[in-house]
């Protein structure tokens, strides 16, 4: 993993709106690895990926893709939302646009704290929107 740089809040705010694009083909092996790990034996997940494929960091991890520096040393995931419109099928190429949407400075007398919000849109090779997601990282 790339070491995350620490940067001043103003420098990070200037990066709001920064976007990146990623593309990934999903095959049956990837679906099987995911379902084996979570012990998800639902027979539906053969040619169709479970929704949890979209929730993975490699698909909806905008923080990883954009490499925005952190304001403080520590960071953890704070929350996430996913809207699912169409399922991923084996053989689909998922094209994702990530955006560093905003940083909210939540520092108080209890200490430094900030929420970093990332938004992502996921489409398939036909241009159909499969899902949109929002992920929030807390740095402290």
């Amino acid at each position, binding site marked *: 993993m790339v070491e995350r740089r620490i940067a001043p809040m103003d420098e990070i705010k200037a990066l709001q709106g920064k976007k990146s694009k990623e593309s990934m083909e999903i095959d049956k092996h990837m679906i099987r690895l995911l379902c*084996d*790990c979570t012990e*998800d034996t639902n027979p539906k997940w053969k040619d169709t990926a479970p*929704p*949890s494929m979209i*929730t993975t960091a490699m698909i909806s991890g905008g923080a990883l893709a954009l490499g925005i520096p952190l304001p403080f040393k520590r960071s953890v995931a704070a*929350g996430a939302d996913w809207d699912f419109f169409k399922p991923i099928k084996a053989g689909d190429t998922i094209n994702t646009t990530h955006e560093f949407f905003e940083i909210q400075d939540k520092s108080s007398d209890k200490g430094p704290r900030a929420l970093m919000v990332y938004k992502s849109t996921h489409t398939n090779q036909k241009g159909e929107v499969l899902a949109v997601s929002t992920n929030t990282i807390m740095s402290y």
Partner: protein
Amino acid sequence: MAQLYFDDVKEGMSLPVMEKTPTTQTLVRWAGASGDYFELHYDKDFAQSMGFPGPIVHGRLEAAFLSQLLTDWIGEKGELRKLSVQYRGNALPGQTLKLGGKVTKKYTQGGENLVECQIWVENPEGKQITPGTAVVSLPSKK
């Protein structure tokens, strides 16, 4: 896997409880399958430098478990439409996590039969470490 129909859902009803016990091996497998190699989930020294007792379970793995709770419940013809989670606590590998949910609302919108639920991951101490909400679409018997 039984099919759940919109007609059979009542507000206030509970979802079947699911238990998961992710181990350190589960975390390694999840890292590989999901592309999440954050050291917090496998490096004890790194995790302790961040103030944790050791590596913690990926929040996204808990989200995947909640997704499975819902897709198992709604059956083949149901669809998960929305999943929202807040990470308010941490799970340690080896702990048995209890996943549950409750129906909060059912309605029809845009020709779809939709059901809203509260969902959660509960740690062995009974604390909801990952609460959230979900919306599923269900077929009707008619």
